[in-house]
Structure formats: structure tokens, C-alpha cells
């Protein structure tokens, strides 16, 4: 593999200069490559001992981190910058294109940490040791530099349980190859000893025909058995791989999962493993088979007539070259065709899923024109491709015949000159030429297929190797919790440079109902995600009953928390299975009680099939309020110690909200409840209200206390009252 380490000398010089300024030591360092007016330049920055050492072109600078008020990572379009503030005045530290963006985000976090007197362990920046490229967060392998051979070796442990079957398959491989080599020899005998012989012997003739037929039969049977064995083992390997992959994805933290799209994850489980299957079932055995046959044929030919063999082999490299260039060309052709076809598919999908909009706005004609344009394009391209293909193929086949012509020429001449060779020798050699030349065209595709497989393998193993960032401790605690929650200096950020929650200190006692209030995007949902340990705090800690939640077993913790979210996800299945999802061993009676408590029983009984009504993706569509009540029933069924309601009643009409509120009020007694609501009236039963603003807690108190103090909560309540007054007056 080529190493792409092409760091320019000037960049290295800048790095060394910055390092020298810092006295040869660095806590952290990064490169940047733009000057302040967005021209390309070479710069490096070293952070050491509370100071920043900067080299940018010829300019150098040293800054004291403690003299600076704030550091910011600024994400522009196609470029990024680090800015800082001193005395209300903004300054730019450095800028770079996106290549160094991740390193700069981490630098900002480091500098902020140094300023706040924290020490940050730098374990986030992963650099590919080979090419020096900063890996994307979440990626653990550099697909560019990965060792392909090692990658394929990693499949071996999965094949181990099938060692016996595979050995048997190997024997069959050799058997098939041997017969393939033997057959032309038999043909030669048939022709030389019987057909062209002066006085053929009938018994020998029949025996030989019998042997040839038997060979054919043995090949057929051996191939069949071989195929069955390889297909079975590789399918088993594939299933195992998918199982491991699926289990691994479930084990990953929510952060690890949301970093990749659902589509990408689905792809890895289905498509990537499918590519592996194609390789294991199809390409790999075929490759071994062909290699064995060619080696055998080659050996026999060499023994038989080495001069002729070498002459036949001369055009082989040429042919391989030619076919790989044809492959490149046809690959381009079909690549384009494939893309235009997929574009056409996208358009169809688009229009059909948006049919309502198309009809409402009366744009059928326009859509038709758009479809026709793409359909025309597909037709044009595929027509052109067919034409080119039909021009290439016969010519290529002609070239493949070159070897045969050479044999006929040389051996034929020999026969005419009575040089001791017979017609049988001619036939034998022509067969061998066919065997050697035959797979050449196929071989041209092999490197590409192997590369594809390597990419898929790398992607699959990347996930298998990934460490979950919400890790289980060695001896996780499993116990019934009481329900006291405490945030101690807890901070959290989804990415390295920005905290969504800063220094949260909050105590929630068992039995309390706490309302989280604030505008959207101030960190309320993040705070409850932290309690459920969907993410781990970046600094500080959260404890339940005085014990850090990271010490609990994740399953134990979450099984005692009930959650109702604004968006309720119903799985494809019956209403019953959706409620029982929270507790698979629940009895029917428990499910009915839960539904009754959630005010869901009544509407469920209005469904034609009662609790057996199908809902979800392709099932019966429930309204928002009905889904919500199913979600509440789900949460009740678990009898959780901690109940979390995230906007559980927003976007519902007042009557439904009142019903759901009733259900919730029944639920909260004796439990710790945390509710997020924009409609403040929903929180009238709260014992404590926590007002969030910009990732921090601004106010804590009861409704009365907060109204008296006249802070943000007071303003929010007033704004909502005015709104409802306005609505009433209209």
C-alpha cells in the first residue's frame, strides 16, 4: 500500500518552530493552514504549561491562557477558526480549512480546561499512525492505510468451527482440478490410439469413453458437494458475523449510534456482510479452484512440451493488461448507467411518497416532464453502453483465440512435418490453452472484487472493534433503587468544543415532582438523557441514591426508569405487544390495568380487534393522543421508581391533555418524577421547578417562590398568560 505521508517541509518547519518556542515540550499541538485572510499558509500551534505558542508563516506569537476570558471554535463554511475574547474584544487565534477542524475543536476544549484549572486527558484525537490523518470521531481505522491481508485473516476465527468441512472441500477442490487436468490427456489417447489409429481396438475404445464419462460424472458430483459445503459454511460464517455486529451495535452508546445514520448501520449489517458473503460463497472458492487448475495444467504442459508452453504463455500478460483496461472502461460505462438508474428510482420514490403534495399543487405535468427527462437519459446511456459492449466483446473473444491459433500453427506444422506429434496432442494442447485463457477475462474483475470485499470487511470490523463510550464497570451494582437523584458539577457536551450543560448542581429527593423549564435547546432533554445514562457526563457526576450512576449496571438502572417522550415510537405489532414491550413477562391482566390507568383502555376497546389491533409502520394508524397513552401504559407497566416525562402532553388538544394529565397524576405519587413541559400549566403539581438557560440552571424553586422573585420563570408565565388572553379576546 502506498503511504500518503505528504506533509510539506514548510509545515514540518512550522511545527518544529512552535515546539522549539515551547521549549521542546507540548501538552497538545495542532496544525493550521490558513492566514487570517483565508490564503493558504503554514502554521502550527503548541499548548504547553498554560501558554499558547503560535507560528503562522513568519509571524510568531505567545499567549498566556489565563489572561484570556473565553475560547471559541468557529465553524465557517469550508474553513474553521479559533477565536478568543479579552475584555469584551474578540480576537482570532488561527484559522484552517476543515482538515484540522477536529484537532482545533479539541484544542479549544483543552485551552478552556486549562483556563478552568481542570486537566483534560487527551484521548479523543485519534491519528492514523501511518498517514498522519486525523480520524473522524468514531472511526477507529484509517480505510486508506488498513492492511488488507490482516483484514482477511480476521475472518479465520469465524471459519474455525468449520475446519472439518473446509478440509473436505479442499480435497474436493484438488480432485476437481486433477480431473480437469486429466481429461485432455484422455482425449489425446482417444484420438491418437483409436480415432486416427490404423487398427483401433473396440474394447479399449469403449473403456476410454467410459472413463471420460466417469470423469464428467465425478466432476459434476464433486462440484455439487463442494458448492453445498462452501455455501453452508460461508452462510454460517455470515450469520455469526451479523450476530456479532448486531449485538455490538446495540451495545454501543446512543452517541456511538447517532454518529452514524440508521441507514448506514443497516447497510453495514445487510450490504457489507452481503459483499462478504458473495466473496466467501462465490469468489473465494472459485479463485482457489481456478488457481489449482491453472497450476496443474501448467505443470503438465511444461512436462509435455516446455517450449510450446512458453510460447503460449507469451500473450497472457498482454491479455491480462488488455482485459483490465477493458474492465476499467466498461466499469465507467456501467457505473454511469447504474447512477442514472438510481436517480430515476429516487425521483419515483420522491413523487410517489409526495403524491399528495403533487396533486394539491397540481404539478403532475411538471413531474411527468421531470420523469421523462431522466427516463430518456437512462435510455440514451444504456443504448450507448449496449452498442459499445457489442463492439468490444466479439473482438475480445477473437483476441482470446490467439493462443489457440498459435498452437494450431506450431503443432499443426509439426504434424504435417511428421514430427512425432499426433492430432490428439493438438486437441490436448488446445484444451489446455482454453483452460488457461478462459479465466483471464474473469480474472480482470478479481482485484476490484477483492478491494470491495476489503472495504466492507474494514467497515464491519470497525464497528466490532469500537469501544462503547458508555462502558459498564467491572462489578456493576444491581439493586432496587429508592429514587434520590443528584447532579454534582455535571457538565456535558455532544462534541468536544461545546458544552450543552455546564456545572449543573441539583438535588431531587424521592417522591418529588420536578419540572424542567426553559426555551428549546437549553439542555433540558440532555439532562434527562444523562440520568438515563444514554450519554455519560463529560465532567462531574450524577448519582442515584448517593452512588455514581456509572457504577450501576445499565440494565438495572434503566429498568427502573420509566420514560414517556413527545414522539412515541410504536413497533410493528399489536397494541398488546407494544404495551408489554416494557415488561415481556407481564400478564394480560397487568397490561389491561396499565392501559386503564393510562386512560387508554377505552379507545383500545373501540378498535375492531381490541388489544390485538395491529399498529406501527404498516398497521392501523393511531392519533397522537392515543399513541401517547400507549406510551404511558408502557411506562406504568414497568412500575418504575423514576418517571421521566419529556413533553409528554405537548401537541395534544386540551381534553386529551386533561385525560393524560389525570393518568400521569395517578402515576407520580410515591415516585420521583421529572417532567419537561413548555405549557407551564402542565407543571402545576410540581414540587420544584428548575429553570434552564444556556446550559445552566438559572432558578430553582416552587411556582410561588419563582413568581415572587420575578425572574425568567415569572416572565415565561406572563408571556404565556398574555398569549392565552390574546387567544380568548379574539
Amino acid at each position, binding site marked *: 500500500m502506498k503511504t500518503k505521508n505528504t506533509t510539506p517541509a514548510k509545515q514540518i518547519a512550522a511545527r518544529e518552530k512552535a515546539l522549539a518556542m515551547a521549549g521542546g515540550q507540548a501538552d497538545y499541538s495542532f496544525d493550521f493552514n490558513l492566514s487570517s485572510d483565508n490564503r493558504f499558509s503554514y502554521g502550527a500551534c503548541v499548548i504547553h504549561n498554560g501558554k499558547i505558542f503560535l507560528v503562522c508563516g513568519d509571524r510568531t506569537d505567545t499567549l498566556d491562557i489565563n489572561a484570556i476570558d473565553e475560547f471559541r471554535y468557529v465553524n465557517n463554511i*469550508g474553513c474553521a477558526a479559533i477565536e478568543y475574547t479579552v475584555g469584551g474584544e474578540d480576537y482570532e487565534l488561527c484559522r484552517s480549512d476543515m482538515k484540522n477542524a477536529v484537532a482545533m475543536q479539541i484544542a479549544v476544549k483543552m485551552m478552556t480546561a486549562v483556563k478552568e484549572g481542570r486537566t483534560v486527558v487527551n484521548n479523543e484525537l485519534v491519528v492514523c499512525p501511518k498517514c498522519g490523518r486525523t480520524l473522524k470521531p468514531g472511526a477507529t481505522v484509517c480505510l486508506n492505510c488498513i492492511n488488507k491481508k490482516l483484514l482477511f485473516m480476521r475472518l479465520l476465527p469465524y471459519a474455525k468451527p468449520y475446519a472439518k468441512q473446509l478440509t473436505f472441500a479442499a480435497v474436493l477442490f484438488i480432485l476437481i482440478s486433477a480431473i480437469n487436468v486429466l481429461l485432455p490427456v484422455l482425449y489425446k489417447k482417444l484420438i491418437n490410439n483409436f480415432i486416427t489409429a490404423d487398427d483401433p481396438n473396440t474394447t479399449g475404445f469403449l473403456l476410454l469413453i467410459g472413463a471420460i464419462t466417469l470423469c464428467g460424472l465425478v466432476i459434476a458430483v464433486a462440484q455439487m458437494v463442494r458448492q453445498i459445503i462452501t455455501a453452508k459454511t460461508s452462510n454460517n460464517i455470515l450469520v455469526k458475523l451479523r450476530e456479532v455486529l448486531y449485538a455490538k451495535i446495540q451495545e454501543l452508546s446512543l452517541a456511538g449510534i447517532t454518529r452514524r445514520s440508521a441507514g448506514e448501520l443497516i447497510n453495514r449489517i445487510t450490504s457489507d456482510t452481503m459483499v462478504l458473503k458473495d466473496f466467501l460463497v462465490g469468489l473465494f472458492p472459485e479463485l482457489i479452484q481456478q488457481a489449482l487448475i491453472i497450476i496443474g495444467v501448467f505443470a503438465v504442459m511444461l512436462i509435455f512440451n516446455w517450449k510450446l508452453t512458453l510460447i503460449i504463455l507469451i500473450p497472457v500478460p498482454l491479455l491480462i493488461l488488455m482485459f483490465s483496461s477493458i474492465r476499467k472502461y466498461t466499469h465507467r460505462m456501467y457505473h454511469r448507467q447504474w*447512477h442514472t438508474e438510481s436517480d430515476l428510482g429516487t425521483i419515483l420514490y420522491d413523487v410517489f411518497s409526495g403524491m399528495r403534495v403533487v396533486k394539491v399543487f397540481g404539478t403532475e405535468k411538471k413531474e411527468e416532464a421531470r420523469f421523462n427527462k431522466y427516463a430518456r437519459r437512462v435510455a440514451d446511456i444504456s443504448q450507448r453502453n449496449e452498442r459499445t459492449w457489442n463492439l468490444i466483446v466479439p473482438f475480445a473473444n477473437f483476441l482470446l483465440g490467439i493462443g489457440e491459433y498459435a498452437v494450431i500453427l506450431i503443432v499443426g506444422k509439426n504434424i504435417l512435418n511428421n514430427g512425432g506429434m499426433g492430432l490428439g496432442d493438438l486437441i490436448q494442447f488446445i484444451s489446455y490453452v482454453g483452460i488457461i485463457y478462459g479465466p483471464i477475462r474473469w480474472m480482470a474483475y478479481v482485484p476490484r472484487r477483492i478491494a470491495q470485499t476489503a472495504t466492507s470487511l474494514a467497515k464491519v470490523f470497525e464497528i466490532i472493534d469500537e469501544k462503547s463510550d458508555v462502558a459498564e464497570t467491572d462489578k456493576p451494582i444491581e439493586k432496587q433503587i429508592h429514587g434520590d437523584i443528584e447532579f454534582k458539577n455535571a457538565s456535558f457536551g455532544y462534541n468536544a468544543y461545546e458544552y450543552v450543560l455546564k456545572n449543573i448542581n441539583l438535588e431531587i429527593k424521592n417522591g418529588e415532582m420536578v419540572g424542567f423549564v426553559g426555551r428549546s435547546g437549553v439542555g433540558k432533554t440532555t439532562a434527562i438523557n444523562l440520568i438515563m445514562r444514554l450519554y455519560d457526563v463529560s465532567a462531574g457526576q450524577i448519582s442515584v441514591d448517593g452512588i455514581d450512576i456509572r457504577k450501576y449496571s445499565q440494565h438495572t438502572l434503566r429498568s427502573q426508569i420509566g420514560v414517556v417522550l413527545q414522539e412515541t415510537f410504536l413497533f410493528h405489532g399489536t397494541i398488546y405487544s407494544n404495551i408489554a414491550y416494557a415488561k415481556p413477562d407481564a400478564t394480560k391482566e397487568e397490561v389491561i390495568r396499565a392501559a386503564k390507568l393510562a386512560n387508554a383502555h377505552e379507545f383500545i376497546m373501540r378498535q375492531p380487534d381490541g388489544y390485538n389491533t395491529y399498529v406501527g409502520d404498516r398497521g392501523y394508524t393511531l392519533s397522537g393522543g392515543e399513541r401517547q397513552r400507549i406510551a404511558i401504559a408502557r411506562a406504568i407497566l414497568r412500575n418504575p421508581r423514576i418517571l421521566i416525562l419529556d413533553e409528554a402532553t405537548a401537541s395534544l388538544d386540551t381534553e386529551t391533555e386533561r385525560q393524560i394529565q389525570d393518568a400521569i397524576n395517578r402515576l407520580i405519587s410515591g415516585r420521583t418524577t421529572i417532567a419537561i413541559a413548555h405549557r407551564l400549566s402542565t407543571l402545576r403539581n410540581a414540587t420544584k421547578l428548575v429553570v434552564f438557560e444556556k446550559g445552566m440552571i438559572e432558578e430553582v424553586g416552587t411556582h410561588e417562590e419563582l413568581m415572587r422573585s420575578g425572574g425568567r420563570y415569572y416572565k*415565561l408565565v406572563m408571556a404565556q398568560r398574555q398569549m392565552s388572553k390574546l387567544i380568548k379576546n379574539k
Partner: protein
Amino acid sequence: MDNFLDLAEINYFTPENAKFYKTKNGFAAMKAFMPPIPKDDLEVEEQQDKTPVWQDLGRVYFHRMFPFETPDEFISVLNKDGKEYGIIRRISDFSGEDADIIREALAKKYLCPEITKIISIKEQLGYSYWEVETDMGRMSFSMQDTYRNIARISDTRLILTDVDGNRYSIKDVLALDRKSYRRIELYL
């Protein structure tokens, strides 16, 4: 009511109501003649004096509304938190120092080298490696999932996004030289 769209007001900045300047450290800032900006967004409902006054908005941020179609028209002027002060209809409405400050700030925010020549494209293991000549010099970059990371703005206009998130533009593929065109043709 004539047109219901008239209900939405757009505050256009013109040389009459806006004056741009640079902060000590070269960031774009402005003074504007407009209704007072409320300090706290919670007090919006309260009666406020809407008479425009000249005020110093301090540092402002620009964002192109149609970066591909009209990079020099419809530019949103925002505060630090992304709240819009107003819109510049056309940069050419302004002249002299004002226009220079706007152009300079946009040049610093948007980095998108223009590809003038494609020297080579190599594909390997699902990545493509590009070697190109741009208006900012020779550059090399790599792309993943190449076809999907080339945005087709029009039939001839392309925006390429590399693995790091850098962008490269090709204003007119047909205007590229023959060899360059052959190289990129596969992805069109």
C-alpha cells in the same frame, strides 16, 4: 389585504440606514438606523418604542441566503446568536469601504476553491483521490462515496465535498479542458 406575504417584514440594509466598520481586530461590525434591539427576548410583548434610531450593533456575522445562486445578493446580517438584524439585498448597493468590509467578511467565512483543472482521479477502496489545480493553487484531497458528495447545483455547476468537509467548486464542467472533463465525466 393585498397580498398575505406582505405580513412578513424584511428589514433591508442600504447605505442610508447602515454603516459598516471594522473592530480593532478586523472583524466586521456595523451601525444601523433601526428600531431598538430588545435586550431580552422575553420582553418582546411589552410596549416598545419602535421609532428607528442610530445604534451601534457591534460585531455582526454574515450568511449567504442563496450561496450557490446569488452569492452577492441576499445576505443575512446576524448577531452572535444567529438572530437576524436585517438583509443586504445586493452588495453592489454599497460602495467603497462598506462593500469592502462585506466582501472581506464573506471571503473569510466561505472557503471554496474553484477547480480549474483536474490532474488525476484515483479510486481505491471506496475512496477517490483527487489531484487538482485551483484558483488557490494545486491541491490534493480525498472523497468518500464520491458520487453522493458531488452536489449538482445545475447541469454544469458542481460542488465537491471532501472527507474533511472542505468544499471545491466547478463553475462550469463543460468549460474544463477535454482531459479534465474525461476524468470527472464518470461522476456526472
